[in-house]
């Protein structure tokens, strides 16, 4: 298989098995309440604004088709994009992986002599571990998105693509601000307006004094060299326009061919992510403004390896809307930290293992009941359940012979022949003894004890269906 030889990405996988990390989250009542409230609210908003559009299915198909067209000729589109950027005066850098991308950005930042940079919320910079790399070089990265700021002040990790502090309630945020935010009112209340105002005055000072900004991009137009940032708070607009140096870190899959293609995605994205018809701020720029220096760092970090897999490449259509997270019954209960990667939720369970290789956290493709809601809500129609199944096969191939694979092989031997199957069912009747007292089975030995810790099993019947059928 060709994809096995491609270089994988690195960065930001904790490697903690999902079931272990999930167990801790499931026992956190505050977290469960915060997540249930936040995800159910946003699910309802999304459903109502999506239902408004009579052509949602067509938009969704168009979004998928545009992304597929870009991915099919990614090399051509990337070179076109680079040429357009250079023509407009932007310097373009290419990064193979997280380490290289972080080094390029760190070098650019330290060359300006600054000790601080302001950041627009960006998944790509989280993926490459940029803040940590900058810190190692003595540069403080200040997150200006409110939720990212909350995460940063809490020395915490994001747990959601769009709402990284979704796991925090407002009382927790007030305590955090009082403790960590320089110059904050010590009597700050937990009123959302007061919290926003505190963040606003703290950030306003940074916007006007820090001279280097780092952004990602939601979309990049190949034809024109245009970058697009979609946001809600206006912090992005500040970062993109005020500092004299702007460095944008862009995953190579972010391209769309033409300006006109944005009309599809600017409808799909806000409705899917925040449940709004339109997001408050869309910043679109083509090249640096007067007096500004601009750099674009194009990051692979496992994307080419993902592209090489015909069954997995559709994950690169993802526009990071988080509709799949908000809709996922697993995510709603475990939260994002359980996934142990920059990209949590269903899309994380298919994207992270592809970017880094499945062996880095082989439990991720199993972190789903395959209920299919993620596929239904995905604005670019990524068939996440099928992709999870495909990646599970990759996991079992990587692991080779295990007790589980032996059991599966043996069960398949019984199931591929009716006579053997019948013998197996008849011998299973001996398990009737386990349920003789209560007419149900309450305890089984490992690994089946994982079932009986919380659920009974019916007692096997005296007669299988087949035995009944033959005697009637």
């Amino acid at each position, binding site marked *: 298989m060709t994809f096995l030889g491609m270089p994988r990405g690195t960065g930001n996988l904790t490697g903690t098995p*999902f*079931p272990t990390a*999930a*167990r801790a989250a*499931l026992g956190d009542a505050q977290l469960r309440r915060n997540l249930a409230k936040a995800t159910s609210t946003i699910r309802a908003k999304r459903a109502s604004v999506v239902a408004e559009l009579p052509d949602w299915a067509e938009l969704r198909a168009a979004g998928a088709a545009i992304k597929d067209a870009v991915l099919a000729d990614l090399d051509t589109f990337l070179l076109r994009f680079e040429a357009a950027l250079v023509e407009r005066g932007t310097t373009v850098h290419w990064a193979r992986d997280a380490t290289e991308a972080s080094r390029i950005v760190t070098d650019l930042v330290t060359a300006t002599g600054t000790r601080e940079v302001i950041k627009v919320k960006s998944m790509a910079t989280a993926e490459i571990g940029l803040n940590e790399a900058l810190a190692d070089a003595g540069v403080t990265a200040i997150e200006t998105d409110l939720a990212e700021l909350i995460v940063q002040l809490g020395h915490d990790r994001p747990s959601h693509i769009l709402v990284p502090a979704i796991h925090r309630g407002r009382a927790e945020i007030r305590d955090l601000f009082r403790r960590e935010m320089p110059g904050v009112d010590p009597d700050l209340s937990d009123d959302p307006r007061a919290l926003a105002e505190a963040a606003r005055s703290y950030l306003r000072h940074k916007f006007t004094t820090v001279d280097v900004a780092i952004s990602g991009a939601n979309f990049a137009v190949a034809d024109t060299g245009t970058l697009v940032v979609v946001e809600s708070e206006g912090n992005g607009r500040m970062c993109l326009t005020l500092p004299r140096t702007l460095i944008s870190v862009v995953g190579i899959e972010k391209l769309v061919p033409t300006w006109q293609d944005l009309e599809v995605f600017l409808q799909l994205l806000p409705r899917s992510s925040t449940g709004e018809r339109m997001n408050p701020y869309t910043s679109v720029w083509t090249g640096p403004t007067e007096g500004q220096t601009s750099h674009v760092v194009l990051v692979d970090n496992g994307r080419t390896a993902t592209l090489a897999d015909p069954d997995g490449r559709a994950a690169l259509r993802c526009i990071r809307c988080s509709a799949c997270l908000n809709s996922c*019954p*697993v995510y709603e*209960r*475990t939260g994002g930290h359980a996934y142990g990667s920059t990209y949590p939720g269903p899309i994380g369970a298919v994207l992270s293992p592809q970017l880094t290789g499945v062996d880095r956290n082989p*439990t991720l*493709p*199993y*972190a*789903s*009941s*395959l*209920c*299919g*809601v993620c*596929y*239904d809500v995905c604005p670019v129609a990524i068939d996440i359940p*099928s992709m999870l*199944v495909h990646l*599970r*096969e*990759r*996991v*079992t191939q990587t692991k080779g012979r295990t007790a*589980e*694979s032996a059991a*599966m*092989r043996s*069960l*398949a*031997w*019984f*199931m*591929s*022949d*009716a006579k053997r*199957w019948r013998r197996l*069912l008849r011998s*299973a009747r001996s398990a009737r003894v386990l349920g003789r007292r209560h007419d*149900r089975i*309450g305890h089984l030995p490992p690994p089946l004890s*994982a*079932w009986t*810790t*919380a*659920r*009974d*099993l*019916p007692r096997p*019947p005296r*007669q*299988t*269906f*087949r035995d*009944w*059928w033959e005697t009637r």
Partner: protein
Amino acid sequence: MRIALFVTCLVDGLFPDVGKATVTLLERLGHEVVVPPRQTCCGQMHVNTGYAAQALPVVRNHVEAFAQADVIVTPSGSCAGSIRHQHAGVAREHGDAGLVAAVGEVARRTYELSEFLVDVLGVTDVGAYFPHRVTYHPTCHSLRVLGVGEKPLRLLRAVRGIDLVELPAAETCCGFGGTFALKNADTSTAMLADKMTAVLGTGARVLTAGDSSCLMHIGGGLSRLRSGVRTLHLAEILASTAEVGAR
């Protein structure tokens, strides 16, 4: 019509009453039911756990078992979904061109029970009588893989004597997910807890669905809680009459 019943491995071994009810129902509607003797399992558990290669002989056996059948009916949305949407992939990846064609043929003739009743036979009133308070859980694969929509509910609404109550957050997964229930037992249990809360809140005495696997999961939880709510497959309710009730 001569109908080949694919009873499924789970119903054959653990829930024979569901198979018997499906036979009773289809015969009462005037059709001949046959049970092709070579059938075993659709192989979905293997495929969904990452063992598609091992599932190949199971898929091949299934296709051979039903090669002669004109129409195949199964009391499972999930197994019908696997046959229609996964078998071709398994055959393509691990099998041969002959098998790809054969699984396509079998898939085209395979129906989940409620689809078969409503779409093929064109009936919604199957003459059932079931005087109990019932709530219905639409299983994920019947809903999102097959798209059965309201069909099971239309069948249930036509049952005489039934007190059908709506299940809150009905379309949320119960947490079964095949081996997910074992591999991620804690998360699965958390999902189950919410599903049981919803079921118990309805005051229904019976929970029904179109898949014995999901019912085994929710029913296993309801039994552990000694809740007194029982689970019955849709086929068992539809097979009930004033003369012959379910269980």
